[in-house]
């Protein structure tokens, strides 16, 4: 397989402009002859569907929630980056580009990242025009905050609800298109497979989650914007319904999967509190602007935090990484927290936690300012833990949060299946081995508002209508496969519930393919996962039928795909004999425990191709070249 990233030639600053000029256009009158399916209504899918609708394409947009407005983008708290340099603190497109490439530990494609930084400013303009109520200064202009991995303030925010406000902006744009009839929104409609004719993506098969009806949809192109796969770990900061089904089905139909092992474990989750726990809640990274992270200096110090004097506290991020301090990037901060806990200095139940303390900030700026900045997060923390963070420091622990890996796409965001585009968290494109905070919202909206509208036009102009109808036998065939899979899930008749099996899988993933990984552990996981998968197919219990709202069946279907994806994640982690970004192989570390990259052998994207049910997938490589950011040792010290 030849992977052609289709990166335009020329200097990096000119690539996107030149490319846009070279892309073919569909003339306005012809756009209405084309139809596009967009799966997902989050920031990526919602913005794509709205914009494609505005341009005149017929769009069918799908989500599994009961409203497009509830996509998991809504949960993003902290903010969105842009290179506006409104703070006059030295920011620029170039700096955002450089920070993102470095933050990704030199494992992302330069050209994509540069484009992202370029587009970032237009995103803020668009959102403000839609009525997104970003935080403002008294003079009426936009305010910024700082986020990890950057030394400038470039993050725009709407209290602790940035994702919600951006998504509402995008949902409103989508609603406007629904009103004009350009977009049809299909809620509670879950994509279960992709349909190809002559190798081109021409449609999908869905299950209506209320009636169980299996439905087929045909179009000239398909866009997947279905989010990330952190729920492979069972416990993560993602919503309960987040799943890998759409991308996994596409993978099994021939779209290659890039860097599945690149997962982000976020440093500031609320620690797990019991076996029954159903998800992890994130405390926004923005808290690290004012919160100081510490653990007791002494191993096993069980005193209450207030009883531990200043001199007996170890503000370890400030100590180890003085130039970034509490704003060290996520991968670095998470691993540091794990090291502290492994040393026996963790706090809270089981010693799996570190303090995030606001006492100094309250003294410095006053409790009212702290409340204004983070009130809703403090409130949420108190509800969950029953503790008041204005009085006692928060306890936090790393939590699976984001997946940098995803379906491989070229510069046009098209996968290896012609006509299948992948945007937002579902693709692998921009964040390399570690994503910086406030960059996912930026990427989702860049892809949807400003990239796909151009590149989709080029694809349609070059390839014309698919000419396929629902009568094509490929649709019936795919529908039969979908029905067969559902019947199989319903008829196993075993005695283990989907959650019970998912917890078992999640534990293996967390232990062996989580914050730190070893050859031995991964090999063990690669033996265990097929056993759990076999147990799933032999001993799963689902009650009820397909023809009604059946949440157990939904869970089982999603879990079946996680069972397969997890194995690929481990395989990829095993093959990558280096540490980079969120991927930490214990065998590859510096003397002081930092990640040790191996540029000689691993400066590439690992791209996996499905070869058949009982076959090992084949790995391909897309070499990464760095002409503008010299790979350096990523130091935040």
């Amino acid at each position, binding site marked *: 397989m030849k992977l052609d990233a289709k990166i335009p030639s020329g200097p990096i600053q000119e690539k996107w402009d030149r490319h846009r000029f070279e892309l073919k256009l569909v003339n306005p009158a012809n756009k209405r002859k084309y139809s596009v399916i967009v799966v997902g209504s989050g920031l990526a899918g919602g913005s794509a569907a709205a914009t494609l609708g505005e341009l005149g394409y017929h769009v069918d947009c799908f989500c599994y929630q009961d409203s497009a407005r*509830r996509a998991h983008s*809504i949960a993003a708290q902290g903010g969105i980056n842009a290179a506006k340099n409104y703070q006059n603190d030295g920011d620029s497109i170039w700096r955002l580009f450089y920070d993102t490439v470095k933050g990704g530990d030199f494992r992302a494609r330069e050209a994509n990242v540069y484009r992202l930084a370029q587009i970032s400013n237009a995103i803020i*303009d668009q959102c403000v025009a839609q*009525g997104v109520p970003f935080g403002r200064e008294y003079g009426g202009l936009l305010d910024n905050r700082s986020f990890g991995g950057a030394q400038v303030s470039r993050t725009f925010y709407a209290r602790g609800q940035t994702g919600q406000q951006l998504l509402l902006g995008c949902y409103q744009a989508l609603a406007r298109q629904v*009103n004009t009839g350009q977009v049809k929104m299909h809620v509670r409609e879950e994509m279960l497979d992709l349909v190809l004719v002559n190798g081109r993506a021409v449609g999908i098969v869905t299950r209506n989650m209320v009636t169980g009806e299996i439905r087929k949809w045909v179009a000239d192109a398909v866009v997947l914007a279905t989010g990330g796969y952190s729920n492979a770990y069972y416990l993560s900061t993602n919503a309960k319904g987040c799943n890998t089904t759409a991308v996994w089905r596409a993978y099994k139909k021939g779209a290659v999967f890039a860097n599945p092992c690149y997962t982000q474990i976020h440093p500031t989750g609320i620690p797990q509190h019991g076996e029954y726990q159903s998800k992890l809640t994130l405390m926004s990274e923005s808290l690290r602007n004012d919160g100081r992270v510490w653990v007791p200096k002494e191993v096993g110090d069980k005193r209450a935090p207030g009883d531990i004097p200043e001199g007996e506290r170890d503000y370890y991020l400030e100590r180890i990484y003085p130039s970034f301090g509490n704003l060290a990037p996520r991968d670095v901060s998470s691993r540091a927290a794990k090291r502290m806990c492994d040393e026996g200095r963790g706090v809270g139940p089981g010693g799996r936690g570190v303090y995030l303390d606001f006492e100094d900030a309250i003294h410095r700026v006053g409790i009212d300012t702290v409340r204004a900045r983070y009130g809703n997060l403090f409130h*949420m923390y108190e*509800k969950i833990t029953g503790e008041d963070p204005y009085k006692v420091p928060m306890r936090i622990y790393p939590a699976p949060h984001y997946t940098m890996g995803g379906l491989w796409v070229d510069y046009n965001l098209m996968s290896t299946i012609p006509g299948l585009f992948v945007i937002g968290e579902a693709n692998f494109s921009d964040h390399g081995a570690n994503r910086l905070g406030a960059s996912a919202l930026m990427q989702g909206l860049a892809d949807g508002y400003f990239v796909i509208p151009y590149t989709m036009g080029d694809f349609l102009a070059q390839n014309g209508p698919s000419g396929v109808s629902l009568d094509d036998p490929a649709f019936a065939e795919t529908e039969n496969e979908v029905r067969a899979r559902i019947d199989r899930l319903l008829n196993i008749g075993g005695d283990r519930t989907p959650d019970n099996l998912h917890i078992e899988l999640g534990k293996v993933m967390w232990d062996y393919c989580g914050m730190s990984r070893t050859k031995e552990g991964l090999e063990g996981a690669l033996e265990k996962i097929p056993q759990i998968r076999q147990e799933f197919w032999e001993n799963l219990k689902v009650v009820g039928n397909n023809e009604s709202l059946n949440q157990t069946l939904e869970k089982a279907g999603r879990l079946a795909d996680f069972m397969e994806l997890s194995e690929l994640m481990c395989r990829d982690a095993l093959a990558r004999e280096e540490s980079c970004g969120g991927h930490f192989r214990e065998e590859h570390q510096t003397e002081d425990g930092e990640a040790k990259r191996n540029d000689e052998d691993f400066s590439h994207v690992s791209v996996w191709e499905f070869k058949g049910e009982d076959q090992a997938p084949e790995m391909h490589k897309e070499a990464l070249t760095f002409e503008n950011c010299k790979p350096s040792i990523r130091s935040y010290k």
Partner: protein
Amino acid sequence: MELTLHVWRQDGPDSPGRMEIYKADDVSSDMSFLEMLDVVNERLLEEGKEPIAFDHDCREGICGTCSLMINGVAHGPEEGTTVCQLHMRKFKDGDSIYIEPWRARAFPILRDLVVDRGAFDRIIEAGGYVSVATGNAPDANTIPVNRDESEMAMDAAACIGCGACVASCPNGSAMLFVAAKVAHLGHLPQGQPERQKRVLAMVEQMDKEGFGYCTNHYECEAVCPKEIPRKFIAEMNRDYLKAGMAAE
């Protein structure tokens, strides 16, 4: 703790419903309400019975999916809290808890505790937006926005569209939901050009969907998990009157 749950079960949109009783023992006070239901559901499933269907997704109080009436109160006893953020420490050992779906003419029940809130989407589709196509926007700092106005817009925009306001209103009115969107855009300069058109279109759609009228009970404000204030309803009434007169 040990609890007795009385739960509304209904097989489908057209089936009759009934209350069923379940015991929940071994409930930890650190559990969230939905985690308590998860445990009950796991047990039902193990017994070969169909678990209780309920809507939820983010479990962080932001997506607006969860929607339960608990002892007659939308989202349960804790103020300013969605049911996914409600924790069992708010209950006592031995409590009986009544769990029902949102009940309103405009929110038909789909199954058990799951309802159809599509009417809310249709209200937004009728006009709850600024008509600005992608690429049309001027630089974000071109128009300074008074900070207090912008904060007010944010107070309104915090609405998560869960529908608790409708469920708790004796008239099944959606006024707080609609007013929040009208106020969000109405307090920003970007929302001005379509301000009048917007309020008329949204209110018209609200009426079409079968939501009731507001007769000033303010139950909506009392249960709103985002504590959206009722003053937005008064603002909307003013906007609506003005717009109506202008239209005549």
